[in-house]
């Protein structure tokens, strides 16, 4: 019984592999997705047995076609005979094919050139490693169909262990490692494999092998962690800086009621002298509770505009500025005696961590004082008390300096000034230029 089942399995695998080898590559590429296996089976029933080219190596029972190879595989390609005969990496193939543009189509073309070249797929391990390395350049590292196509490069059924001894002793270790590396690159880019990947892995390596185990681990852990982020970021962030600012400000604000205001859209102005002046976008956010807190703020104590602080969303970094005041001195704090339980630990006072109330936030591409002044003036429309409160600027090194190579001068360079809103006729209260000594970051920061 078991023997006949084995035979049947072998036969079906052989049909599958024959179909897999004989299908023209574009059709194979089109068979991506869940229909992959079905398509192959269907075509095998159409073609099965009718074509049998001489080059096809028939599968012998209890042995693999590898044994019929007479000479050892060589890495030298025909085109490279003129070059020196040292180990030729398969990167050259990629560079030859796509000298002008590197796209998914050209990447697929390279794979097709390689697969059609030799039915024995000599040097496929090195080819797959080279392809994995080149994927980011071609921009296909996040594409599951490309990974499946690359996995298809492996010859089928050759590496499947046939008995328990082969299973025990890491049958075809280099190929198994290569398969695992391919899956690991998929895992590091966060791509979930699909059924076609599984079918390919079973055909190539069989069950209970390392690539299959790796696939099973990915399929176990990825769904667990996919939604673990309580603040998810969409895969495609908005391109428009104003939209990006709006999204990130709503993300940071702790309040559903917070309102985003666009104070200025990015535009390019031409001044009288003919010089082009680019005005940056200014997007601010403030919630009603923040407006109330600002209205209740003591005008004697200044508020500070601090920034820029980085916010990272996947690989994008945006900078935001904050309008906040210093924390209230202890005597002004109210000790709200809410109901306290016996088990509450009263020695750890959470209020000590208060960094000062935040009144508003804004994002702008150009963080100099003029732009921030504009923001404050815009804020003043809805918070008239800002006219009476002295506003000090505590700005760190700007994003431009952060992106470039910073030297120690710029690292410690912080500048402070004060801004007096001239709307209110109360010059005595407005602060003069005050220089504060408190550096934002210490000397060790490299930028």
């Amino acid at each position, binding site marked *: 019984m078991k023997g006949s089942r084995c035979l049947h399995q072998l036969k079906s695998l052989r049909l599958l592999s024959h179909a897999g080898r004989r299908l023209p590559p574009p059709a194979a590429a089109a068979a991506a997705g869940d229909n992959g296996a079905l398509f192959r089976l269907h075509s095998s029933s159409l073609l099965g047995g009718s074509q049998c080219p001489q080059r096809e190596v028939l599968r012998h029972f209890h042995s693999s076609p590898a044994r019929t190879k007479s000479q050892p595989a060589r890495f030298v390609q025909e085109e490279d005979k003129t070059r020196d005969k040292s180990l030729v990496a398969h990167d050259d193939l990629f560079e030859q094919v796509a000298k002008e543009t590197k796209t998914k189509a050209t990447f697929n073309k390279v794979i097709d050139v390689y697969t059609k070249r030799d039915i024995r797929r000599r040097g496929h391990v090195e080819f797959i490693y080279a392809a994995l390395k080149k994927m980011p350049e071609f921009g296909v590292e996040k594409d599951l169909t490309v990974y499946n196509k690359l996995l298809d490069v492996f010859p089928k059924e050759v590496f499947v262990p046939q008995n328990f001894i082969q299973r025990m002793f890491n049958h075809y270790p280099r190929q198994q490692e290569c398969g695992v590396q391919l899956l690991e690159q998929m895992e590091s880019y966060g791509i979930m494999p699909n059924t076609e990947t599984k079918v390919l892995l079973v055909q190539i390596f069989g069950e209970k092998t390392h690539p299959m185990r790796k696939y099973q681990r990915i399929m176990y852990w990825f769904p667990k962690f996919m939604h673990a982020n309580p603040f998810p970021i969409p895969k495609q962030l908005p391109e428009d800086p104003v939209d990006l600012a709006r999204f990130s400000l709503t993300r940071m604000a702790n309040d559903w009621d917070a309102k985003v205001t666009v104070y200025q859209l990015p535009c390019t102005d031409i001044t009288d002298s003919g010089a082009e002046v680019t005005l940056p976008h200014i997007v601010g956010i403030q919630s009603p509770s923040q407006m109330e807190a600002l209205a209740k703020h003591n005008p004697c104590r200044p508020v500070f505009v601090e920034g820029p602080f980085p916010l*990272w969303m996947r690989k994008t970094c945006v900078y935001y500025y904050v309008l906040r005041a210093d924390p209230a001195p202890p005597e002004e704090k109210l000790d709200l005696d809410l109901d306290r339980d016996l088990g509450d*630990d009263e020695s750890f006072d959470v209020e000590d961590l208060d960094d000062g109330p935040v009144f508003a936030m804004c994002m702008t591409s150009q963080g100099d004082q003029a732009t921030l002044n504009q923001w404050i003036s815009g804020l003043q429309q809805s918070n008239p008390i800002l006219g009476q409160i002295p506003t000090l600027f505590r700005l760190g090194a700007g994003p431009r300096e952060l992106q470039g190579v910073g030297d120690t001068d710029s690292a410690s360079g912080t500048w402070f000034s004060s801004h007096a809103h001239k709307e209110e006729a109360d010059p005595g209260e407005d602060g003069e230029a005050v220089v504060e000594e408190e550096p934002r970051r210490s000397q060790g920061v490299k930028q």
Partner: protein
Amino acid sequence: MSLPRITHLPSGRLLSTILHHQPLLPSIIPLTVPKRAVIQGEYRRPGQPKKTKFAWQKINFNFSKGLEGIKKHFTLLKKEFTDRWVGPEGKPIVEHMLEQNRVVWEFRGPESLREWTVSSDREIGGHSEAYLKLGRNNNTCFLYGTLSSTPPRDGETRYSGYCTMRSKQPLASFDRKKHHDWSSFNTLQLRVRGDGRPWMINVSAETYFSHQKDDIYCYFLYTRGGPYWQDVKIPFSKFFLTHRGRVQDDQHPVWLDKVVQRKIPSQSDDKTDVSLP
């Protein structure tokens, strides 16, 4: 580097032992198969000189250090003797039984920074840097630096770019190792303010076998970014077991009675600032 000698291990674990530190570069032909002893001692990175110092040469004999040490250790010893009369772990038994939360780490001054070790990519040859200082008002600690994900060119590291903040092993008198007993708690609560990047929380427990030395229980810490403090509560049941960075197949809950260290690593591409209270 090629595959190590394969021993007959159950197939689930074989994968994790093969893939430690051993990415295969295709064009390098391995000349020798490295022999790895079953007991995993200290791994010597390629390029590092062999340390052939004898054990007695590592001891630093210094008179003033000795005096300070005597004072410190005897104070600790005296405290240990007297604490037993107060109650378990130096607290009255009523408090020990009824406590709902225990503050383990808080930053209230420069001494609290000495409990933490900051390390980064630099120790394996990368280009990241990380520093720790006290934040504003001396109430918080501020971990900042630069991360760079270019892997060091030693032929075996593929991914790089991390920085971690690690709590030191608690020590009793005469530098004996102590552990935290968190068996009466089930959640870890942190107050953090990050810059939007995901971090990880690692907890490691004291183990009996040396094979389990690198067993770490991990979970993710997602920061929102922004100027507001974020309260993060992670139940200990969510932590999953990893060994040397690889998630293991056999998972079990954290052994809370022998907790030794807490680590907060981050991996990403560029400059990072994370503030932690």
